[in-house]
């Protein structure tokens, strides 16, 4: 459905070829194509603007103008800049506190919080030999607590017993107590989905954070998200102390530009990628691969290598 950015840029520069050296104006022209490619990948417009401005400076300052393959050279610069923003600091979970370490999951409705809660629990249990408990604070969605309970049984991780009619804040208190008394290393709090503009539910989330004092607060974001990503990222990070992002549904065919938006707006690292519905389908986030996807090119690495040889 989409053109590859490299093809597009090739087109731009081919038209200019034979006219002698490329100039700044040509780079700007190429950057228009980069802009469209990013927008088609659902990178949010303000983030696109900031990114393109930065990369334009880089490109003009570099050897693009003299390069024999300017299209690939621009792709390389764009790709490198994407990777450096998407990657950034190290991204593991930081759970080095007196137990229980609390991880709170937040996000929009249906983004994948409950599933990701269980996936992380399984990972901590199996890879880090932690004693883990999960608690669902979702009293809104029908059968939400049962959903987490069933997942807990599947992965053999304890869940806080369900008490009908209890409010989220009280469930959080009970979960904290239980985790301390039963000496769990990690307590995962799964919360109800909420819109970032729902003041009542955003206040509830803050109240839960007050009680849980989470070590990690992870915003769970659907990689299919469009332009609204900036609003979501901004409102959630204004309300709670986010420490990381989880991008779900990376097993789909979306270009996943929301990754760049989230990373830029929250300033927090993307810690995991959800790649399926099964409990093992959680990966460490791979900035190279995602950069390639955003640019619409599986073969970005090869392309970039070829570009580097030329330069």
């Amino acid at each position, binding site marked *: *459905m989409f053109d590859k950015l490299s093809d597009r840029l090739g087109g731009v520069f081919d038209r200019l070829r034979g006219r002698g050296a490329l100039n700044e104006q040509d780079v700007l022209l190429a950057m228009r194509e980069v802009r*469209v490619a990013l*927008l*088609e*990948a*659902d990178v*949010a*417009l303000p983030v696109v603007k900031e990114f393109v401005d930065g990369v334009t400076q880089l490109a003009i300052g570099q050897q693009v103008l003299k390069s024999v393959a300017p299209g690939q050279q621009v792709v390389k610069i764009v790709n490198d800049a994407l990777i450096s923003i998407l990657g950034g600091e190290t991204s593991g979970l930081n759970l080095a506190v007196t137990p229980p370490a609390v991880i709170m999951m937040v996000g*929009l*409705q*249906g*983004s*994948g919080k409950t599933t990701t809660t269980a996936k992380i629990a399984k990972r901590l249990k199996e890879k880090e030999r932690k004693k883990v408990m999960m608690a669902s604070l979702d009293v*809104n*969605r*029908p*059968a*939400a607590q*049962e*959903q*987490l*309970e*069933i*997942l807990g049984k*599947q992965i053999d991780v304890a869940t806080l017993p369900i008490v009908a009619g209890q409010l989220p804040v009280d469930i959080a208190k009970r979960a904290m107590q239980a985790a301390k008394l039963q000496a769990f290393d990690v307590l995962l709090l799964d919360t109800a989905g909420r*819109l*970032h*503009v729902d003041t009542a539910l955003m206040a509830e989330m803050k109240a839960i954070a007050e009680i849980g004092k989470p070590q990690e607060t992870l915003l769970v974001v*659907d990689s*299919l*998200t*469009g*332009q*609204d990503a900036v*609003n*979501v990222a901004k409102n959630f990070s204004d309300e709670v102390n986010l420490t990381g992002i989880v991008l779900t*549904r990376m*097993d*789909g*065919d*979306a*270009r996943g*530009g*929301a990754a760049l938006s989230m990373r830029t707006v929250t300033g927090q690292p993307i810690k995991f990628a959800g790649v399926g*519905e099964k409990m093992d389908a959680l990966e460490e986030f791979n900035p190279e691969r995602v950069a390639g996807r955003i640019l619409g090119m599986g073969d970005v690495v090869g392309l970039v290598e070829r570009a580097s040889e030329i330069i």
Partner: protein
Amino acid sequence: QKTSGKLSENLTGLVTKAKLDDAILDQIEEALIISDLGPATAAQIRETLSKTRFEKNPTDDAVRHIIADEIESILAPVAVPLEIDAFPRPQVILVIGVNGSGKTTTIAKLAHNYIEEDYGVMLAAGDTFRAAAIGQLQNWAERIGVPIIAGKEGGDAASIVYDGVKKCTQDGTDILIVDTAGRLQNKSELMDELAKIRKVLGRLNPAAPHNVILVLDATTGQNALSQIEIFGKVANVTGLVMTKLDGTARGGILVAAAKQFGLPIHAIGIGETMHDLKPFNARELAEAIAGISDIEND
């Protein structure tokens, strides 16, 4: 006389009217992109507006109305309600879409609305995969007061749907709404399951499913087009419902979808309760995208 009066008004209009300048057009294009129309559709609408003539120095409000008019003209032809007219009964409505888009909740809302209109409704728990998916639908069925046909977790979705149709036919139930597991459109084995459900239904009644509704999440960006295309091919989608328009996402991808696929848009979801579904209104969405007014729950 009236006609000639109007004509001269138009003529003088033409003389004094100007075109939008590039700065305004840039702003319009950006506003459309932010609403998820996508760069290509936004550029097309910009192009159309650039050729239109306006009052000199149009006010902000006038420009917004012109944008809304243009978007409305694209959306109006696809604003089509979901009619219950199957004969023989039941009318089978299959609800499909990617994970977490709002299928199950939309089914609850539809069932509630149809019960209010005095139809007999039954639900079928065709999501046998996700943890507590059956419980979620059962919970809704209880609240709304409609019967539900459900099997075991991990069971065969197609056979539950088959039983549902048989039961509705016996009982004279008007509508059977079928929930299905969420699936990403690039997962071929899961998409095959949808094709199988269709086939099994067709054996009982060649006209079933009468409606195949693809549920789109308003938060979704350009990937919604790929969803419509691929679900459309595999499951013969007959209409769309967009959920979660109570947030800040504007669902502009529907404009691109209307241009590209022309599929009917039946309704929109604006909240998590069973009261939060309303018929799709082209003008309302157009005004929301143009920034004139928000989508309200009325």
